[in-house]
């Protein structure tokens, strides 16, 4: 037991060390950092504007009002940007495989996931995060939710579950590179696409989409169902814990990654 404990401790320390190197590295180019962070802010800001102007014309969609949709969008954006901040290393993994850099990772006596994770820490995503927080505050103020302890806990569960699901998706995205060497454009629909379309509650996309998002990729568990609980449309306690259940999505992702590592053939020189 003590052995595992110290192993986890050293992994976390290593990861934090990687993060601090990355941050110091980025801070060498301060102007570029702030411009990119501002750019990130702007990208999701135009998505926000598209929601805003749709609601100038329509008062509600499938029973959700503007502030409720904003709340949903904000939580999804927070989940996504948290996952992106920590797990963006997986995004550039195709380059790592193609250049043969993954060989170096494999020969080091440390967990390879930690090393890939540590290869990139995207602090610029903080621009996106900032916007999510502003929208979240606005959504809370306007939607007139009657907050209590279990609802606050649900939001925290949503953030944990959502960050885990998106991290798992980034991991699957990266694991495909073991087989294709290229990052798969199609996977974008599950990551960037989910962020874009997650601005509306999954329920509005119809029955079939909801089934898909419940049982295949658990977007609905981190967004739609807990949202219903927070808004008071559903009172069953189970809705509160669904986001934690969604964390289970990490297991097949990890297995797929392990499978990929075993099949890894070095390329590059």
């Amino acid at each position: 037991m003590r052995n595992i404990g110290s192993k986890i401790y050293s992994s976390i320390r290593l990861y934090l060390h990687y993060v601090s190197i990355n941050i110091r590295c980025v801070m060498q180019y301060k102007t570029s950092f702030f411009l990119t962070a501002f750019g990130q802010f702007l990208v999701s800001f135009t998505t926000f504007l598209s929601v805003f102007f749709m609601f100038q014309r329509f008062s509600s969609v499938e029973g959700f009002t503007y502030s409720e949709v904003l709340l949903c969008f904000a939580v999804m954006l927070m989940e996504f940007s948290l996952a992106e901040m920590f797990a963006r290393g997986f995004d550039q993994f195709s380059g790592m495989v193609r250049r043969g850099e993954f060989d170096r990772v494999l020969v080091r006596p440390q967990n390879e996931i930690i090393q890939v994770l540590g290869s990139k820490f995207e602090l610029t995503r903080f621009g996106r995060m900032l916007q999510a927080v502003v929208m979240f505050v606005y959504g809370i103020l306007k939607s007139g939710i009657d907050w209590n302890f279990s609802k606050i806990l649900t939001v925290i569960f949503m953030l944990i579950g959502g960050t885990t699901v998106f991290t798992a998706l980034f991991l699957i995205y990266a694991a495909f590179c073991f087989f294709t060497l290229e990052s798969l454009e199609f996977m974008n629909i599950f990551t960037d696409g989910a962020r874009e379309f997650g601005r509306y509650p999954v329920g509005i996309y119809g029955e079939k989409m909801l089934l898909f998002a419940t049982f295949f990729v658990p977007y609905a568990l981190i967004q739609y169902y807990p949202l219903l609980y927070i808004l008071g449309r559903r009172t069953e306690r189970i809705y509160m814990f669904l986001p934690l259940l969604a964390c289970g999505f990490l297991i097949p992702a990890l297995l797929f990654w392990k499978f990929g590592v075993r099949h890894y053939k070095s390329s590059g020189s």
Partner: protein
Amino acid sequence: MKKYLSFFRLRFIMGLQYRGAALAGISTQFAWGFMEIMIFRAFYRADPSSFPMSFSATVSYLWLQQAFLALFAVWMMENEIFDSIINGDIAYELCRPADLYSMLFSRSIASRLSRAVLRCFPILIVAVFLPQPYGISAPASPRHFILFLITLILGLLMTVSLCGLVYILAFFTISPAGLRLMFNSAADFFAGALIPLPFFPEKMREIMELLPFASLQNVPLRIYGGSMSSYEMQKAIFLQIFWLVVTTFAGKILCHLAQRRMIVQGG
């Protein structure tokens, strides 16, 4: 002119080679188009009377947008060109006895066109056979269809011309990442790539339609579904030509300036 045509041909043939990438792109665009349509369906259900254009025209707009994404997506700029400006390889291009701007222009048209040719037909064919109202409908009239084709070409030229400005600005900034991000998101928003321009409030839409960004996908995609009056179409086409002349001219001048004070990076 002949040399630019052969630049065009080379790029076009090269672009046609990436069939695997096209296949991946097609499936992504299908999923994307489908999800967009579901959003608009939900809003249509909520309040059909607030819809500024008919539902079938909206669906046609969304499918055409996906089919011709490569023609109008401003974010599909070529990284190769930016890289060559940053690492100095652009010097080789400058050695050629050809005008840099025209070269970039013909090259961009070719790569966009080759991508679109590979991707548009599968999407259009499936969209035609989808059950109504989720499929693409026939153009409003033969006249609308011809105008659609003309404005499609004008829109492509306009996209290339606008992106050309960004390429050339990269000569001045060296680190164009932030500039690109800002340009992409602003252009997408004002061009009607996020939501079609008719969905904006009246006052706002009137201003947006005057901007150069409205001359990209907005004009052909709306003409196809017949949601513009004759007068509006005339005005839109006039604006397309006007902005095309202005941005191309500006691009040429900027390019000239950039070449006068160029510092080639790297060695």
